[in-house]
């Protein structure tokens, strides 16, 4: 370790793949259901098997969904786009090339706000997934088998700018993306099954210099948010060590070894591939009309960020209660109905939602809002039954603050608010309960009234 250690800034860009859940595959009529298929190689045809003479016909729905995702991530949409062939050899790629998009993706120049700052989205393009290799031992011999059920499944790739500055932010971004694709109902985004896959490009720059570093390390095939965070964090420490010693980390591709808790080298830059991209002559260019984009924009559901903002504005709902309820679209939309019903009866949104979040009311999402409100009333009335707790807290506060009581009794009404605050704080502290301020105020006023009756002085 040298004395003149630099301050480094982490530079991270993400590539996120998500399989779209269209009914059929990207370029053929085969069923798009690779995870539930009862047998390998049953959802296949000449096109997704890459047979000679098979021709791709693009799935319109997959294209529209990609555009929707782009609109949800505040992207521009290319009204003229095309598919390109990306060539490489791998046994799970039957044509010897993958149909992808090279220089004209459907969407570009987007952004998504994370709690740690805005992340720009460079592009979103559409491509086809590969088959799946299975390595098995059959009759004592190691065998590699190929299942083409997944071959040709539509796959969107979201590529960010290197705007991400921490592992935490990378995780937040990826989570938000998953939340959005689920809101859009275009992908199950199941990480464990590989329906959503993460790659991180990680490097470190000197904090004082604005330029990007002259190297990057690609971490491939990360299949959980936790691993993403751990892998980036590990890379940060690894690269820092190298930089501190005055060297530059190698441009390379690495993978995350969850058992060893470290990234491991997979490929160095010498083996960098030339994919020989060219426009797929089997697929005419795709032309979208502004009217189509407009329609897709109108079809977008209210997205999580907008929902939280509106709940705040409309119901003064605090983010800590709102956030968990917005996690999933069907739950959030149900909560919208509950909040609207609650507002009609002047029920305090924060108390109601906090009761839901803290499972004080246990109802399934989708339950009739009236039933939810009834359950809430039952909960709060059972709070009143527990009036001994409230009475005990009030008595304690009054005993601890004799001056305030005397002054209130002498006509300084504003001290009621002070005593009220103390009481609520005491209840929260002791019983970990949220209380209805109105109810406490009423009980407090009643108790103070009692006190001024002759012979019942609290100070005696």
């Amino acid at each position, binding site marked *: 370790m040298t004395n003149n250690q630099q301050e480094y800034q982490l530079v991270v860009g993400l590539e996120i793949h998500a399989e779209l859940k269209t009914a059929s595959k990207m370029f053929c009529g085969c069923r798009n259901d690779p995870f539930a298929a009862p047998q390998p190689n049953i959802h296949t045809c*000449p096109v997704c098997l890459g047979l*000679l*003479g098979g021709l791709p016909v693009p799935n319109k729905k997959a294209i529209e969904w990609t555009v929707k995702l782009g609109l949800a991530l505040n992207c521009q949409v290319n009204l003229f786009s095309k598919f390109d062939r990306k060539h490489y050899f791998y046994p799970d790629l039957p044509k010897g090339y993958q149909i992808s998009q090279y220089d004209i993706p459907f969407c570009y120049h987007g952004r998504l706000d994370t709690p740690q700052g805005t992340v720009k989205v460079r592009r979103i393009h559409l491509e086809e997934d590969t088959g799946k290799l299975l390595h098995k031992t059959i009759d004592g011999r190691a065998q590699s088998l190929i299942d083409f059920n997944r071959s040709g499944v539509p796959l969107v790739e979201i590529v960010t700018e290197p705007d991400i500055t921490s592992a935490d932010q990378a995780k937040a971004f990826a989570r938000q993306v998953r939340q959005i694709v689920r809101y859009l109902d275009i992908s199950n985004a199941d990480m464990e099954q590989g329906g959503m896959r993460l790659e991180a490009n990680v490097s470190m720059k000197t904090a004082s210099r604005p330029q990007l570093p002259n190297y990057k390390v690609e971490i491939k095939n990360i299949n959980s948010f936790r691993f993403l965070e751990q892998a980036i964090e590990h890379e940060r420490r690894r690269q820092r060590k190298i930089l501190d010693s005055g060297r530059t980390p190698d441009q390379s591709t690495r993978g995350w070894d969850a058992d060893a808790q470290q990234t491991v080298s997979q490929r160095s830059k010498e083996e960098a591939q030339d994919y020989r991209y060219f426009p797929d002559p089997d697929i005419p260019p795709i032309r979208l009309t502004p009217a189509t984009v407009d329609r897709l924009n109108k079809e977008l559901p209210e997205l999580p960020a907008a929902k939280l903002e509106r709940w705040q504005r409309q119901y003064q709902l605090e983010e800590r209660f709102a956030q968990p309820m917005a996690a999933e679209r069907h739950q959030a939309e149900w909560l919208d109905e509950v909040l609207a019903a609650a507002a009609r009866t002047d029920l305090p949104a924060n108390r109601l939602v906090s009761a839901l979040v803290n499972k004080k009311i246990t109802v399934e999402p989708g339950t009739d809002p009236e039933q939810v409100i009834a359950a809430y009333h039952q909960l709060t009335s059972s709070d009143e039954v527990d009036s001994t707790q409230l009475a005990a807290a009030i008595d304690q506060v009054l005993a601890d603050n004799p001056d305030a009581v005397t002054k209130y009794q002498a006509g300084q009404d504003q001290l009621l608010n002070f005593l009220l605050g103390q009481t609520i704080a005491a209840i929260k502290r002791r019983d970990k309960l949220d209380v209805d301020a109105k109810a406490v105020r009423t009980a407090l006023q009643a108790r103070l009234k009692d006190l001024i009756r002759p012979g019942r002085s609290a100070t005696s």
Partner: protein
Amino acid sequence: MTSLKTPSLPNRLTIAQALELLRAKQLSHQELYQALRQQISQSNDQLNVYLAQEPEAEEIAHRYADLPLKGLPLAVKDNFSTQRLVTTASSKILDAYRPPYESTVTRRLQQAGGVVLGKTNLDAWAHGSSTETSDFGRSLNPRNTEYLPGGSSGGSAAAVAADLCLGSIGSETAGSIRQPASWCGVVGLKPSYGRVSRYGVVPMGSSLDSPGPITKTVEDAALLLNAMAGHDPLDATTSPQAVPDFTRALGQSIKGFKIGVLYLDTPGLEEVAPVYHHQLQVLSELGAELEPASGLEPRLAISVYTVVQRGEVSSNLAKLDGIRYGRDRSYFGGEAKRRILLGTFTLSKGYADKYYVLAQQVRTLFVQDFERLFQRYDVLVSPSTPGYAKKIGASEGATMFGELEDMLAEPSSITGLPGVSVPCYRDEASNLYLGLNVVAPMWREDLVIQVADAFERHTPWNCWRSPDWARSAHADNNRSPNHD
């Protein structure tokens, strides 16, 4: 409707004739298929036309008797996927490949009542213009067996010329239908790109490949095109527009047509140019207005075609990775290897802009050039090839053999235009033919059929329409012996 005479052997019938005789019950499937079997057993070993034959052709024909094509026997180039017959593309890599699915073209022909009698030889992967790159040996030109039939659809053209079928199917990337048709003295029609589905055709140059009929007469070509053409939901590059009945263009006057004559002054054509000038007069006599026209230099099209097609070939053959289809890449012949290497190079990073992108830009210039020409002309005519068929062995060691032979078809191929080659002269000494290439704007196959049909009906060069031409004294005297 025609002045055709019924030949003594049913295999010498045209499709139109056979349909008429079958309808009139003057011909049976048995007679027809027996004659074919006999002819095939006599000459297939020598000509090397069929790589595979349907053993139950006649039985199938009986089942198709009530369909429009009534169970007529067709030869199909061996790059169309057929479930019943091995599909090799004339490459040893595929010598045991039986596709699990049917190409759209053969499916449609069968649905219309055509029987796939057999699969015909081609240049391996359709790479060539001679059939000499076939891994199963070259085919011979039935007009003169010292000569090549041309290619890549050489087997299909030879099958027609030798009466080993009533009609055949080929595919053209640039000249692969029209050049062998020209060399074999038969009719070859290359439809507009996107008019006929490529689904199930072993891909070569995907942005160029156009399946089409090779037949005895223009009329037969129209009949087969009717059965093949039209939008295919399995091929995104097929056009959704409606398909006209192409037979309606038959027997129509071409009076008042403006026809541009292309390429006769191209270097290398000195020998045959006078023949074309002479033969083209019949079009003027039929009331068309002929005029020398000039288009972009066809040699430029060779460059465009070579770069685009090699790039697409290198990509399309990537699936032959040795994991499926039985044999590995070492079984590729020399021509395929050369094309894969050149295509891989021209698509490589740093070179794609220089070659592939530039070629596509020049391709656009050709499109614009034809648009300009078609503002003035209804159709364009030119020689189909620079000359007569070449002798066997001619392609060996000549790596640009095909490009030079197909030079005159390449401008219309890279622009996707429809064209037909119709026999326009026969050299008595060699018994070899020249072909006239008629090209029309996109989707106007009807125009090329109309003009080629008129030419065919008013000249003696079609040996099925004029079976006794051989007895005529001199070619020049019998240019129009049997006007309708």
